[in-house]
């Protein structure tokens, strides 16, 4: 397993830089959710963002300066004086330079991009993650905890410090599942189940939303994520199991109906509403088709 995080020291250095950047640009604020990660995935993505931004700044700022200088120095004046080389149109050295430097910068971004793309695709080798099956519906989020056999709508609780594996699908038009402070988004699509793992570093409440338009109620596809200690998580599960109502197939069908919903929890859910095989998935979700 390759190291997924950069050494602490450099990490903090970049973070400070980011914060300084954020501060100067727009005034500091926690509202820059992407810049204030609360988990390893989001942090890793932010680090890459910063690396790439710095690399881009190294290109852009010199070019801007060169450009501004050119405009001032070579502007036409009434007496047409100054350097004037109307036929100058090539310079081998310059051309090689202008090709090689961007190539290097692209390489500097591309190599970690490839590394991280692979790394973030793999669950960290910590033992058994919490699995949450996510189904996007019009216009609400249905969460099932197959390990705990409970279900919730529009909110989840997760244990902090432990990876959570989300398995994403849809019984509706597409959406994306996004909790900016924990990490990037992934699509929920009918007929496919996509995995996404995230983790919260410490307890807190994080906003989640959909990033893919799915109709008039799409803005209401927000959910909250409450990260709590493992113990608190277990007792929450127990509480849901004992106090919440069960979900029958009829309840599920009423949830599927178009409309928005508040937070709900259920002590059980009917079998088979989350697909185990993909393709040929039916709308009701109740009779997933076998791949031939």
């Amino acid at each position, binding site marked *: 397993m390759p190291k997924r995080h950069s050494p602490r020291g450099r990490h903090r250095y970049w973070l400070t830089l980011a914060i300084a950047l954020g501060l100067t640009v727009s005034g500091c604020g926690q509202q820059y959710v992407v810049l204030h990660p609360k988990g390893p995935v989001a942090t890793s993505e932010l680090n890459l963002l910063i690396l790439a931004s710095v690399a881009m700044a190294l290109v852009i700022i010199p070019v801007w300066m060169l450009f501004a200088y050119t405009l001032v120095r070579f502007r036409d004046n009434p007496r047409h004086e100054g350097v004037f080389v109307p036929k100058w149109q090539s310079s081998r050295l310059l051309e090689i330079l202008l090709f090689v430097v961007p190539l290097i910068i692209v390489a500097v971004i591309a190599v970690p991009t*490839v590394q991280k793309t692979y790394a973030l695709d793999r669950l960290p080798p910590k033992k058994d993650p919490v699995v949450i099956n996510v189904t996007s519906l019009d216009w609400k989020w249905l969460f099932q905890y197959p390990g705990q056999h409970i279900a919730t709508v529009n909110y989840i609780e997760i244990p902090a410090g432990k990876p959570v594996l989300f398995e994403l699908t849809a019984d509706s038009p597409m959406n*994306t599942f996004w909790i900016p402070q924990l990490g*990037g988004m*992934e699509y929920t699509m009918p007929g496919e189940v*996509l995995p996404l793992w995230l983790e919260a570093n410490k307890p807190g409440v994080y906003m989640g939303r959909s990033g893919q338009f799915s109709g*008039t109620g799409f803005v209401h596809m927000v959910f909250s994520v409450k990260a709590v200690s493992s113990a608190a998580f277990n007792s929450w599960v127990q509480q849901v199991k004992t106090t919440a109502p069960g979900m029958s197939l009829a309840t599920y069908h009423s949830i599927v109906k178009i409309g928005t919903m508040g937070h709900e929890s259920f002590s059980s859910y009917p079998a088979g509403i989350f697909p185990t095989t993909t*393709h040929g998935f039916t709308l009701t979700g109740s009779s997933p088709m076998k791949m031939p």
Partner: protein
Amino acid sequence: MSHIIAELFPPSTLRLFELIADVLIVLTTVSIVGVLTYTKKWVWLWREWLTSVDHKRIGIMYLIAALVMLFRGGVDALLLRTQLAFPNNHFLGPEHYDEIFTTHGTIMIFFMAMPFLFALFNVAVPLMIGARDVAFPRLNAVSFWLFAFGALLLNISFVIGGSPNAGWTAYPPLTELRFNPSVGENYYFLSLLIAGIGTTITGINFMVTILRMRAPGMTLMKMPMFVWTVLVTGALIIFAFPPLTVSLALTLFDRLFGSSFFTLGHGGMPMMFVNLFWLFGHPEVYIVVLPAFGIFSEVVPVFSDKKLYGYPIMVASVLAITVLSYGVWVHHFFTMGAGPGVNAFFGVSTMLIAIPTGVKIFNWVLTMWGGRIRFTVAMLWQLAFIPAFLIAGATGVLLATVPVDYQMHNSYFLIAHFHFALIGGTVFGVLSGMYYWWPKMFGYMLNERQGKVAFWLFFIGFLVTFVPQYMLGLEGMTRRMYTYPPGLGWSSLNLVSTIGAFTQGAGFLVIVYNVLWSMRYGERDLTGDPWNGRTLEWSIPSPAPEYNFAIVPVVHDRDAWWDMKQSGKSEAFKVKSSAIRPVHMPKRSAMPFLLGLSFFVVGFGMTFSWWVIAIIGGLGVLASLLYGAFDYDDFEELDPEVIRRTEAGLGRLQA
């Protein structure tokens, strides 16, 4: 009867602001119609314009249509921005908002950017390569009318039946009948299919024109840079539009004929639509930006008084961009989880495009280096493009960084990226080209002072609109939200952005004023070469005569006209009376107009599943095509005497 009316005018079409805009357009049309009737110019309009196959006329019609559509799409943008100015705003409801961003995106890309570019293709390319017309003049008119009637079809959706409302990308299953039973999406698919046929023909037409009709001596490596970019744009079009056609047609089949391509059940596979759409969609963004690059490569040398720096490298990078741009489409759906192998491959291929693009940027700066820069309006748009496009490109590279895209996808960061590219690249480019070639099109100049006011308003407004949107993206605001609650930190940035949008609107109004004022008072261009140009279009009078070149020029140098002026041969370019020969000219034809109209009827009928109407339209299509097939009388030899008289009238005949 009443049910037909209810179907045609459901409540959702009664939308105040759209109506205002449409009323404005209708009023303009009516007043034009009135003036025409009053001055008995109907016949003139039909004979000289609607049935014209002259590339210069077609170019001007494209230009007018594009400006109208820029207004239309711009009004949409202002409505969007007004709704988003404050949290929990109730200016537009969700249904209305969804329809507006959809039409805004669709109109701006397909019915503003593309026709604006085609306007400039038509106006400039044949003149730049010393040709009498394009390769297929009649098909050129067909392209235009398919575009125009396609645009009309989309535009009537606001008034009749209901608008599309699922974004310009129209992902199923949201666009499937089950979730979207109104006819709006039918309008979207059909209008784009119809316009798409026209676009494909344009692509072929200009490729063939450029490859087969250059003046003698103009080898490929002596072609003006703009011509090169049009050539590769043609290649992009002919390879990119078929996937679009297929993606649109298949969804339409699902909707109208009950197939199961992208449906929720029956083994439908919505992601295949996404795949096909972006197989087109990514090349499309280069289709709209490469010609803009070409325009800059013409404008910069002229106003720097200097040869284009690094022409061969420019050509090479254009070709590289073309080829690469086919291999990157997955970057629009990294987050659809095709796996790390796929994502890494397409992430890296996307980044590679930065290199040839960068080469072009450097070359423009180096072209100015050591020149004498004149800050005309055409040049100002170019100068604004460079810093803006650098930001667009840099943020594009951030988006190509796969894990970063997981956080940025569909956020306002993306919205800001592509407006920087589309406005900073394409819109600045076409406006630069419009100011540059205006005298060649109309024979008079646009007022420079007014043009500069418009430029500064638009440019500053543009920055004020879209820079805050990058920050909104980092704050987690996603696109296509009709409203947002307070307390997320989004409010003030949104307000700033809205103010910027209205500033752009003001800039646009000044452009309109600039055009109208100059029509009356603008300085006439008597020389045909007002900018001290370098390419062949400046060697002939403004506006160009019907036959373009009395005598086809012979090219010896890359900057052909510049070379003639430098070597003192421009006088010799005056026409020798005895050298004038008859010119093979295409004849005007009603077929293109009627074909477009028939397609419109087909589209309208299919939208409502009124098959009788659709079949009538189909018969019209067939009849037009048959007429075209059996019409052998479609060109004439222009009498040398006419040419002699015209040239003499322009003072261009050698004694």
